């Protein structure tokens, strides 16, 4: 096996309370790299299209990359693949924290969870020793309290750990997995753990990760740290919430359930407000020198004592998109989501939908259990989050995710912002057409990361008009591909630039770690991964109709702000989508052709 890898995957069966160790195949490593790529291959091999996402036959594939846990910078990332309770299809997800590095130091590149435990269970892994534990006394514990309980019971404070909250136990389909206070946030993987009666996993490793050229790794690290000190200084001070004010100024910040893209009270929720009044300390993932996480604390008022790590997406979707201009309420809502165990992004979309339905008279206080669910009401934000996590009132329907809401109430479709059941992130594509294609063609439903984040290029590269269609298909495809390999190496995207991980990869870090010439092949591997994921989606029935954008984007012009009058019509979108399918080698219905499968070697790989 190449250096940088352990060469082993641990498979745990919760039904039989057994485990086994299997080899990681070197051919798969050289063709799919690690992380997202190899997790997708496991998913293809083991999760057929008929698998019930909340049934014992679903599995969770946790997979690290070659850089995970190595002595570089922010080598914290690992991936999961599972069938999503939220979208009812393939899900990939990316997470930081200590778990991935600890798993590798325990001797494993990956961890597969299958079956269903008889009762609520937690797992511990110390180097090669796996143990099953009774978690029944922790039933109903918040995700944060569960992490603390596991650490205490395990006796290792510096272990990597993941847990679910009560929402995951109740199979709320937007439940997340809390990983060392970071998150496998999107797609509802917390409900998969809940369906398996798995409350948490903790891991501690003491081994070293072998390196092909340790001296070179050290030199690359030194140069990257110096680069990041200046290139990411703004992240260190303001974190990702620094994007709130610019995106509002660009007329791209979703406001009141995407009814407009400009929030008049932006000053009350931007990064300066956060830093001036709420940031308690910075938070850094494993070996990260940037520390972009902002631990916020409310010091006074009705939400005094609320504490949460507050990121851009959370601020955008719990704040302006719900009409909320009270940053303290956003922190409180963030904390509730974290503790109860639901994704802040899907929660923000669910709350904003509820508020619009309420204001339009389509639901009443009977549905909201007495909550005055109007935009801008902080108590409504808090209350609806609690309803979702507890599956009470309208929260029981919202807990089914947008896929479930549309199925039950198709007449609400025009108010729902999702693609393939995944709610939008905090960008309005009517302000950047490429972002529309990003949402439509992302392999996990509307996602700004997997789908390829293009806004900077659309604005600054000089090659594009942000409102035009020309060139956007190639732009989005390249962004998707580069993200696919970054998600497979085990390093955070925030620091990728310091290591040459762009759409034209440079540098020697992968060679220094693994001894294998990966860098010139990264974009080829990335396209193979993206194609493999689409093959999976095709197998699950995904076609062109599923790549289309919601009605609000294609039928309603923005009514106010800098992008007033802008729209991304179906006809405009179709121009980009046709270009995109052509570049990908998919047919007119969005199906991967046999020729394309051959081009990326999938016919040999998927036997």
């Amino acid at each position, binding site marked *: 096996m190449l250096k940088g890898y352990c060469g082993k995957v641990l498979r745990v069966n919760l039904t039989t309370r057994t485990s086994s160790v299997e080899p990681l195949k070197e051919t798969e490593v050289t063709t799919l790299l690690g992380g997202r790529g190899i997790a997708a291959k496991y998913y293809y091999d083991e999760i057929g299209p008929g698998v019930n996402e909340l049934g014992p036959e679903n599995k969770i594939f946790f997979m690290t990359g070659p850089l995970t846990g190595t002595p570089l910078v922010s080598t914290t990332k690992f991936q999961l693949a599972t069938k999503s309770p939220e979208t009812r299809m393939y899900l990939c997800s990316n997470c930081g924290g200590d778990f991935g590095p600890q798993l590798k130091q325990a001797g494993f590149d990956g961890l597969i969870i299958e079956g269903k435990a008889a009762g609520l269970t937690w797992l511990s892994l110390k180097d090669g020793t796996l143990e099953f534990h009774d978690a029944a006394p922790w039933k109903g514990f918040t995700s944060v309290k569960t992490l603390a309980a596991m650490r205490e019971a395990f006796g290792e404070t510096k272990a990597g750990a993941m847990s679910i909250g009560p929402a995951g136990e109740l199979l709320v389909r937007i439940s997340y997995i809390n990983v060392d206070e970071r998150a496998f946030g999107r797609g509802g993987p917390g409900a998969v753990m809940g369906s398996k009666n798995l409350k948490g996993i903790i891991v501690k490793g003491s081994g070293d990760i072998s390196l092909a050229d340790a001296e070179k790794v050290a030199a690359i690290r030194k140069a990257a740290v110096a680069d990041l000190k200046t*290139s990411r200084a703004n992240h260190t001070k*303001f974190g990702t919430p*620094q994007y*709130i004010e610019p995106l509002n100024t660009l007329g791209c910040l979703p406001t009141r359930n995407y009814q407009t893209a400009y929030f008049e009270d932006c000053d009350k929720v931007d990064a300066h407000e956060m830093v001036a009044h709420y940031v308690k300390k910075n938070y850094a993932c494993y070996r990260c020198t940037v520390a972009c996480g902002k631990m916020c604390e409310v010091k006074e008022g009705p939400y005094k004592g609320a504490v949460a790590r507050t990121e851009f997406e959370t601020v955008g979707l719990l704040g302006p998109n719900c009409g909320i201009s009270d940053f303290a309420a956003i922190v409180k809502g963030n904390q509730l989501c974290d503790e109860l165990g639901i994704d802040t992004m899907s929660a923000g979309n669910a709350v904003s939908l509820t508020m619009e339905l309420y204001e339009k008279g389509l639901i009443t206080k009977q549905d909201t259990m007495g909550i005055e669910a109007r935009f801008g009401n902080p108590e409504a934000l808090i209350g609806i989050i609690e309803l979702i996590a507890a599956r009470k009132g309208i929260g029981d329907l919202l807990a089914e995710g947008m896929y479930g809401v549309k199925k039950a109430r198709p007449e609400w479709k025009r108010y729902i912002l999702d693609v393939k059941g995944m709610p939008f992130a905090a960008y309005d594509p009517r302000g950047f057409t490429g972002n529309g294609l990003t949402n439509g063609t992302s392999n996990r439903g509307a996602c700004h990361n997997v789908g390829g984040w293009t806004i900077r290029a659309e*604005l600054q590269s*000089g090659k594009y008009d942000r409102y035009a269609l020309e060139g956007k298909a190639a732009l989005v495809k390249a962004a998707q591909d580069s993200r696919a390999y970054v998600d497979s190496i085990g390093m955070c*995207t925030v620091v990728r630039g310091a290591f040459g991980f762009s759409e034209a990869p440079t540098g020697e870090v992968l060679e220094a770690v693994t001894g294998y010439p990966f860098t010139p092949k990264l974009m080829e591997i990335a396209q193979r991964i993206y194609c493999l994921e689409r093959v999976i989606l095709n197998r699950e029935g995904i076609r062109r109709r599923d790549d289309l954008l919601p009605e609000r984007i294609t039928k309603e012009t923005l009514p106010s702000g800098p992008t007033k009058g802008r729209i991304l019509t179906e006809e405009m979108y179709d121009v980009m989508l046709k270009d995109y399918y052509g570049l990908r080698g998919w047919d007119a219905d969005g199906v991967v052709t046999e020729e394309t499968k051959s081009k990326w070697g999938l016919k040999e790989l998927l036997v």
Partner: protein
Amino acid sequence: MSGAPNGTATTITISIRYLSAIRENTGKRQDALAVPAGSTLSWVAAWLQETYGLAVPGPALMSTINGYGWNQVSGGLSAELHDGDEIALFPLLSGG
């Protein structure tokens, strides 16, 4: 300033907004400037360099005029300014 025509009697007014982390460099939220009519974006670039030491356009920040990137507008740095133009500077966006 470079980019300003000689002998111009009239002026126009433009605004420059400093968003998010860029405010750390300027100590203020915005400037309203009276600019000789006929001036171009290069005048603004020189003014920002001289006043705040900001290299615009540059790799460390993003710059727009009326919602478009500086290099999206016709003429680039040679684009002529108009009364009421709104310029915004902000840190590199990279996805949340």
